[in-house]
């Protein structure tokens, strides 16, 4: 393709002529004779190249105009306007023009157009800046690599890549440019992500230490927590202080489901350690309040030490009671009835300790068997709640033992009296 070859040549010449600097390229074209030489060839190549390349679409026009203006010494005004509007794509496309044989490998229009908006993201991040850089007079006599370096003055990575671009083929240049383009927006995105969407992890890194540390600490603690504690801890969130209010509110809302965020209250230290300690102290005081309700007669006590003493005394007394009662049970006559356990359990569950004369039905295991006889004889005064069970159960099961214990049955009446006294005796113990 002869026209393409001409393009090639034209491009090389243009490179030498610092064609990448649109604004100044026209005025300071150091190779006018080459331009004039190429004028005819470029004109000839201009039209045919323009038509069969729908590839470049809108972006082609500035390029075409650039080539035109370059060749003609920047005489066209129209191209100039397009220059300023699209310096980037122009620059990109001029590089793309280095070898028209590579044109087919040029990215699709859509992708190229995509790349365009990203360009402002380069280092400086402002389109005008880049445009301004183009306006620098250095553009005039700079070689390809140098001009490309000027391209991205602020980006270190870009410079490294672009410096090598000159040596590389068009493809490589393209890829590296794309890579440079891709990395910078990503870098930007990386920084932006925590700001835009409060990620819990990122938040812990970016926010103040106190919230991060305390939240981590609380996260560990929280796993052991019960619902009760969580409710209490959520009450710890006080007023917000400082500028972090907004961030903290966001983070607090986002983090509510996993762990509790504790904010520093007004006028209190915001040190991470003191915050965690305050949480711990409040937890402990809350538990102490619960214990206070459990221990009888401790409503008026204020103070941790006194309360702890009371708690210790109470637990000791309970344990002593258990010991005493078990000692009592150990001395009981083991020939007690076995099946009455079932009735016993019902009775035990249905009444509390010191239940008085309810259990009159079995004043004692010894005398329980003859009791039904007592009932049937109808002389005993106390009415047991589960008395009627006696006629059915003990008689059928315990007949063999009844005779043995029958003689003890006449003690039942006296036992009942003792029983009442026993109950009353046992009550004040507790």
């Amino acid at each position, binding site marked *: 393709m002869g026209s393409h070859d001409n393009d090639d040549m034209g491009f090389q010449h243009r490179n030498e002529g610092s064609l990448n600097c649109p604004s100044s390229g026209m005025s300071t074209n150091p190779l006018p004779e080459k331009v004039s030489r190429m004028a005819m060839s470029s004109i000839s190549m201009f039209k045919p190249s323009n038509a069969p390349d729908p590839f470049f679409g809108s972006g082609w026009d500035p390029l075409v105009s650039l080539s035109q203006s370059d060749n003609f010494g920047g005489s066209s005004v129209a191209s100039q306007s397009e220059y300023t509007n699209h310096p980037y794509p122009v620059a990109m496309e001029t590089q793309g023009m280095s070898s028209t044989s590579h044109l087919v490998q040029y990215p699709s229009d859509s992708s190229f157009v995509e790349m365009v908006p990203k360009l402002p993201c380069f280092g400086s991040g402002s389109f005008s800046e880049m445009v301004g850089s183009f306006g620098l007079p250095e553009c005039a006599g700079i070689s390809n690599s140098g001009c490309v370096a000027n391209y991205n003055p602020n980006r270190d990575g870009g410079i490294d890549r672009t410096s090598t671009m000159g040596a590389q083929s068009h493809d490589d240049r393209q890829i590296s440019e794309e890579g440079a383009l891709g990395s910078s927006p990503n870098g930007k995105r990386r920084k932006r992500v925590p700001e835009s969407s409060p990620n819990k992890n990122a938040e812990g890194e970016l926010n103040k230490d106190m919230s991060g540390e305390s939240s981590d600490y609380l996260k560990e603690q929280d796993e052991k927590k*019960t619902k009760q504690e969580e409710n209490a801890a959520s009450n710890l969130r006080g007023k917000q202080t400082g500028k972090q209010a907004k961030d903290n509110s966001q983070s607090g809302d986002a983090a509510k489901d996993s762990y509790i965020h504790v904010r520093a209250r007004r006028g209190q230290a915001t040190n991470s350690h003191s915050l965690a300690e305050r949480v711990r102290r409040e937890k*402990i005081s809350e*538990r*102490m309040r*619960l*214990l206070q309700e*459990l*221990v009888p007669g401790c409503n008026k006590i204020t103070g941790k030490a006194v309360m*702890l*003493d009371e*708690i*210790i005394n109470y*637990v*000791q007394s*309970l344990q002593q*009671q*258990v*010991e005493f*009662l*078990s*000692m*009592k*049970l*150990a*001395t*009981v*006559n*083991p*020939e*007690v009835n076995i099946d009455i*356990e079932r009735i*016993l*359990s*019902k*009775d*035990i*569950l*249905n*009444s*509390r*300790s*010191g*239940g*008085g004369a*309810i*259990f009159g039905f*079995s*004043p*004692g*295991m010894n005398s329980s068997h003859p009791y039904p006889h007592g009932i049937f004889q109808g002389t005993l005064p106390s*009415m047991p*709640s*589960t*008395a*009627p069970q006696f006629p*059915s159960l003990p008689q059928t099961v315990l007949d063999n033992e009844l005779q043995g214990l029958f003689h003890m049955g006449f003690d039942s009446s006296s036992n009942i009296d*003792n*029983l009442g006294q*026993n109950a009353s005796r046992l009550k004040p113990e*507790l």
Partner: protein
Amino acid sequence: MRDKCVRVSELNSLPLCLGWVVFVHEFSELTVIPNPNSLKSRFTEGLLRALLRINQHHHQQPRSSREIRKRHRLIKTAAYGSMASAVGNRKAWSRALLSKIRNQARSGAVLRRSLGSSTRLLSMKKRICHLQKGNNKKNRVEVGGSGQVDKLRRLVPGGQLMDTCSLLEETAHYMKCLTTQVQVMTRIVEIYNIP
């Protein structure tokens, strides 16, 4: 024929009793067991069964103080064990208590088998038992807190392993269970009518 009706009022007049209506007929009666799955029910069941077992093992009336002491120890273990089983593995103190009982049982059985029951070796057995108990108590002690907190740690089973915050929580639950235990045992004693 004999319709004995025990009304709620009679029962309610008695202190500390739950109110329910019980119609007592000759051959039919209705009793209400409040919440058969409650801690109290489970504990009562376990304790009564344990007492049954103990009474089956030791048929004769305990005359000597040694026998009484032995039975006393057994009953105490049964009470704490059934309470811990009723609570299950939900609480740290119950877990610690159960593991302690199991260790005691294991070591006790080993001793019994190895040394027999001769009086000469009895003192040695006791010494070994005490040593083992001492070893069991050599748990991680958390430094911090006043002397009262340490006392509390010693009282609550498994208290050496917890931090102060959870210790208080466990203490609350332990206190509640102890209260239930005392209630039930008192009731049993009343039923047995031990003078």
